[in-house]
């Protein structure tokens, strides 16, 4: 069955994403581990299959921090160069929860877009491979460490692209906690009002946030119904099933009057790393409680 070939590649890539993120979490004595466990298949599917991005040639090596954007900073670049040239028929990728940066960096490696050695620069002073990604970081195009601002920016990009006649889509990767933010709902209503059906939002619904489970911090459900009530189409799938994500987004190429689409990906924040489950419900940032705890993760890494 040839269509299974790509899903096998995605699953292999997802495994590599978890492995590399755990490696760096151990190296830095902490990190955003559960986000890798929940979103590995989503980002691997997007980068390996769903998104129509321009090729980059050979894998790129991240460049040093170029300074902030400002008049006269002619050497400035954004991390969008890892997503290929922004051409009319190609898609664009916008990362919203910037603390997922390491998951994106590792997905870029799996997609052959970033040199694996680039990860050695992660969280190193003077590097663009920052812990919380900004627009100079590999794979990033906007600065969205202040959560909830990327969807609005992506909607502006989508409108400008429609006005220009571009055929490529704008993909936005979001976390479920961002649906507690007022601006997210402002952006949803604006994108629906202006019929921005070249916009696709893919959400990692891992039900985890900094203080604990999403339902304990602030209820966002029923998310699907709420999003549809705001004028969007919504699909709910198993976020660890690459085939499911691909088939729901493949149906795009949609009529001009179609609604924009949100894909809610239900995920398990401990998928592929059972050891993590004992930290529940505090999964947002993994810290090792003791030497023995750390050692258990070293063993888990060897098993991956």
């Amino acid at each position, binding site marked *: 069955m040839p269509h299974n070939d790509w899903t096998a590649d995605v699953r292999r890539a997802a495994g590599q994403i978890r492995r590399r993120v755990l490696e760096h979490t151990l190296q830095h004595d902490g990190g955003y581990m559960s986000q890798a466990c929940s979103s590995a298949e989503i980002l691997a599917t997007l980068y390996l299959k769903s998104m129509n991005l321009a090729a980059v040639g050979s894998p790129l090596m991240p460049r040093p921090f170029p300074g902030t954007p400002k008049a006269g900073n002619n050497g400035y670049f954004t991390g969008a160069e890892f997503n290929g040239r922004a051409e009319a028929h190609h898609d664009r990728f916008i990362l919203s929860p910037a603390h997922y940066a390491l998951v994106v960096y590792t997905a870029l490696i799996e997609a052959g877009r970033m040199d694996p050695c680039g990860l050695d620069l992660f969280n190193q002073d003077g590097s663009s491979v920052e812990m919380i990604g900004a*627009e100079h970081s590999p794979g990033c195009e906007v600065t969205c460490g202040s959560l909830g601002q*990327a969807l609005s920016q992506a909607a502006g990009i989508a409108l*400008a692209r429609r006005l220009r006649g571009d055929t490529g889509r704008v993909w936005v990767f979001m976390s479920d906690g961002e649906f507690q933010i007022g601006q997210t709902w402002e952006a949803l209503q*604006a994108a629906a009002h202006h019929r921005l059906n070249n916009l696709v939002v893919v959400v990692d619904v891992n039900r985890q946030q900094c203080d604990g489970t999403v339902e304990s911090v602030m209820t966002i459900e029923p998310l699907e119904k709420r999003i549809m009530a705001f004028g969007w189409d919504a699909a709910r799938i198993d976020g660890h099933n690459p085939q499911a994500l691909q088939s729901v987004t493949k149906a795009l190429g949609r009529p001009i009057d179609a609604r924009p689409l949100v894909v809610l990906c239900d995920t398990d924040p401990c998928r592929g790393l059972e050891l993590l489950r004992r930290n529940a419900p505090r999964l947002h940032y993994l810290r090792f409680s003791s030497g023995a705890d750390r050692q258990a993760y070293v063993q888990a890494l060897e098993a991956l």
Partner: protein
Amino acid sequence: MEILSKIHAGNLVRWARDRPEVVVLSADLTSSCEADQFRDAYPDRFFSMGVAEQNMLSFAAGLAREGKMPLIHTFAVFIYRRAYDQLAMSVAYANANVKMFGFLPGILTPGGATHQAIDDIALLRTLPNMTVLEVGDATEVESVLDVMAAVDGPVYVRMLRGQLPRLFAAEEPMRLDTPRVLSRGGDLTLVTSGVCTEEALRATTVLRSRGLGVEHLHVSTLKPCNSPIILEALAQPKYGVVSLENHLASGGLGSILAEKIADAGLGVRQIRLGLQDTFAHGASKPYLMREYGLDALALTRAVERLVGQPLHIREEELAAVRLEAVHSEHKVEAL
């Protein structure tokens, strides 16, 4: 003095005609911000964003990233107070080419504290990449579009609407970081901005009649503010400097001048007129300018304190001053 009405509305339509990259975003205050004629003339370039300013600011940044020049039209408070994080992170950080027209600067509205932008200069001039402009009359409302468009990056304009005087000759447009020198004199230096300049012109006419030499500068670029004209004016007065602005006395024009005086080690005495660490409330413009000490009378009282003697200036004397459009004493180029 010539009084004109709804200048921006028609001017924007003319100005944008051959600039296809210009789009207008509005948050349910389209007529109130004189963007209605643009909406009707170019419906394909007008985007209603609803009462949702946080989204509007970030959305505009997205448009700017793709080569559009979004002009945001709403009341100033809803730009910098309601959506400050979006303004700072989506717009200013990215040096996005978003131009913002903030209407109702200072106490120019009976709408009260919720509608009065009294701290916008303080917040926005400290924001990296941001350019801050303020118009003071009809000529500047007309010419601010060219000044703003020539800047590579975000620009915030303290904008005026409705009936406006033409204080400055129509053939002398506003220029970036170039103050207008409205009178020359060595006794005191007076620096004003926005609608306060009209008040100051009433006061300077009377002050001159008392034998005082007044160096009067009108400032319409609050950031960047590096003109040597300002530094020279601050260095020379016999008695000192008075600033008058439609903003808190802290953080705006007065503070900019104080920083310059300190940085250059000028050691000049300064009186900063403006709202003195207070919110205001809803009332008419003349009432509020009197109440909060932003008018010609407040200015003459400050000058009395500075020179240390009574000048015996009566309110009726100030009100009787007849203003004519003035030519700047300082010609940056032959016009």
